[in-house]
């Protein structure tokens, strides 16, 4: 499998480790009322998508950047690869 790194170009998937759904970026607010429930959802509940899936990969053997990869779970086609850092900022993560 090839993941095309946004700067470094195509790299073999062997250079990466997989974490899981990109929703892991959105860590719930620990101060919220139903924090326990929210964290439970965050850790254990997933949409098992047949189709385009956004997921987190760590370029462990490369530049150590976290990436959000959009991959079709049926065809295995990789449609998009972005720096997770950029995605996190864009989607509202800050401090």
């Amino acid at each position, binding site marked *: 499998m090839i993941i095309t790194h946004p700067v470094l170009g195509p*790299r073999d998937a062997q250079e990466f480790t997989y974490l899981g759904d990109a929703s892991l970026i959105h860590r719930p607010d620990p101060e919220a009322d139903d924090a326990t429930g929210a964290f439970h959802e965050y850790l254990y509940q997933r949409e098992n998508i047949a189709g385009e899936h956004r997921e987190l990969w760590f370029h462990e*053997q490369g530049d150590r950047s976290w990436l959000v990869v959009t991959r079709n779970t049926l065809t295995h086609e990789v449609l998009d690869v972005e720096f997770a850092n950029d995605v996190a900022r864009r989607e509202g993560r800050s401090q």
Partner: protein
Amino acid sequence: MHDTGNRLAVNPPLNELHKSWPSLEVKGLTSGEICSLTTLNGGVATLRDRFHKNYGASLPTQGRAVSFSGGYSFCGAPEQWFVQLDGENAFLDVTLKSIFQSNGAVTLQTDGWTRIAIIGDRAPQVLERLVAIDLSDEAFPVDSAARSMLGHLNVFVVRLANARDTYQIWCARSFANSLTVEVCEAAEIVCG
């Protein structure tokens, strides 16, 4: 590297490694000091500016390397560089920190790495047995640096303009022996 007056002797990895085959040389690189440099405080512009003032070269972009008088630098990750300066200075990180101050995080890295140079016309053929990324002239011209895998080892590959047929392989220091074995085995197969 040699003892500078203190009572502890220095033991660089692969000090004595130097092997030759037709059109190929493999040797350990032991000179110079290396530091890591990354941006702090959003100050990448300041970082670039100060680097240029001190070394007369621009900090390279990710995947690129640059040589200057007295050393070279390459960028392995977004806003993360390695800087190699000639000469011996186990406090180099302190020196660099004083240049970049709150805009740069610096660590000494010289001792963390084993460095091997693969030199010669057949270097690309040897590398083809070892490293999965494309290291052809088109994909990996001079002044390139890439981090990937060599067998089971994590390595940097660096190619500078002033030595176009030299490919430096950097690997964590503790793997020195394993790196040597892998590289020499491939050299033997290709050139032996």
